[in-house]
């Protein structure tokens, strides 16, 4: 028998943790470093854990009918959007895309009561009339006749808008934060598929080693104190426009307000709201 990565006790311990308790970012980094150069993968025990789960005598409980309908509706939309993306031609001119970063998940603890009202108040007091709509992505030149097996985020956003007419689309409002002075763009969110995209221009590039942008989504059906973490992202230097996919960490049933803050690298669990750089309030009705 040859030496195997699972013979390394630390690797094995981390792999077990991964499928039982999960890994924190430092543990994940350690595991990846230990596995580098071996044949091991970070999820080497995932199949075994799944098989044990299947071998258990789990109480049989039918899926609630209403949930079944919701899942089917969501699933059909996601599958349609993905299929639509596959045949989207590549546009000639593409905006820069800011990929979401690894981040610390949001955990709703210890926030002062009435947080959302504070955010709303901030929105009301800080809103500046937007000078103009950001022009839609242009395809004035004939698109290249090339299939995009991996559509860009901008293309995915366009596909979502085409496939989900009920998706909401709200403009970003500026705040008094210095980084907000030239912010323009919009946020698109489709409740059915729980997918959405933020589009920005004028949002300054950030140094990820110093700070990162983080999206928060206020959900009208959840406790106002606990906005949903919508993901951490960066704006690369030199980008004139960025499109960022939203990575909501919890289902959002009734989006009420989107807010972008500047946070420590990796994001935070609870924002101090010291630096709000963009806000988009969902129009009621």
């Amino acid at each position, binding site marked *: 028998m040859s030496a195997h990565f699972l013979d390394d006790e630390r690797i*094995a311990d981390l792999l077990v943790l991964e*499928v039982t308790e999960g890994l924190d970012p430092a543990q994940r980094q350690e595991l990846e470093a230990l596995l580098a150069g071996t044949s091991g993968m970070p999820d080497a*025990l*995932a199949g*075994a854990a799944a098989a044990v789960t299947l071998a*258990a005598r789990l109480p049989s409980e039918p899926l609630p009918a209403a949930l*079944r309908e919701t899942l089917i509706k969501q699933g059909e939309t*996601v599958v349609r959007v993905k299929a639509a993306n596959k045949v989207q031609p590549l546009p000639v001119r593409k905006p820069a895309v800011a990929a979401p970063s690894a981040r610390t*998940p949001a955990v709703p603890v210890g926030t002062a009561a009435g947080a959302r009202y504070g955010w709303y108040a901030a929105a009301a007091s800080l809103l500046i009339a937007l000078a103009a709509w950001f022009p839609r992505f242009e395809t004035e030149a004939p698109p290249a006749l090339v299939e995009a097996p991996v559509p860009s985020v901008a293309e995915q956003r366009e596909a979502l808008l085409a496939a989900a007419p009920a998706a909401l689309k709200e403009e970003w409002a500026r705040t008094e934060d210095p980084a907000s002075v030239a912010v323009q763009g919009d946020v698109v969110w489709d409740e059915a598929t729980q997918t959405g995209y933020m589009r920005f221009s004028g949002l300054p590039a950030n140094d990820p080693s110093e700070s990162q942008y983080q999206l928060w989504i206020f959900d009208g059906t959840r406790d106002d104190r606990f906005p949903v973490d919508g993901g951490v992202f960066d704006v690369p230097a030199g980008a004139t426009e960025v499109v960022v996919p939203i990575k909501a960490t919890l*289902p959002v049933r009734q989006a009420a307000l989107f807010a972008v803050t500047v946070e420590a690298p990796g994001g935070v669990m609870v924002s101090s709201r010291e630096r709000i750089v963009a806000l988009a309030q969902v129009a009621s009705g």
Partner: protein
Amino acid sequence: MSESLMTRIARGEDAAVAEVIDQYGALVWSIARRLTRNPSDAEDAVQEIFTDVWRSAHRFDPSAGTEKVFITTIARRRLIDRMRRLSNRVPTESTDVLDELGFHTPDTAGEISVEAERAARVLATLRPEQRQVIELGLLQGLSHSEIAAVTGMPLGTVKTFMRRGLIQVREMLGVTPGEVAGGEA
């Protein structure tokens, strides 16, 4: 041989969505109910899980394992992420409050899937206390230290039991690293 549901989903066949839900919805719901605090949490979790399933369907490799394992892998990953995110582990002070689930025998597990049958074969050879550790960790959502607390076993023993058990199951499955992994990281 008919095409797998995951392949059809990956191809963009939205009609396959309802079939996936009808085939695997109860399984995912049962797992989510074990590892969440209440039905509302479970509903949120199941939506997260299936969103990941739709997005990850193209990664399914039928030669590496069944769809059941693929979907269960995604479900477990999402539920663990969720537990970490929400500090959601069920607080447990003793095994008295945990309803014992137990495992199928290899004979009955074979009706579920070939992987379940192989896992059951391994589990049947383990000492009862090792089976208990695996059950508490994988099916009841207890951390290693919580298992040590409720069983009175040393933490090192808990870790060893869990590690050895999972590695044995992995060997029985005959997988190579990462083969059955599914879902978005």
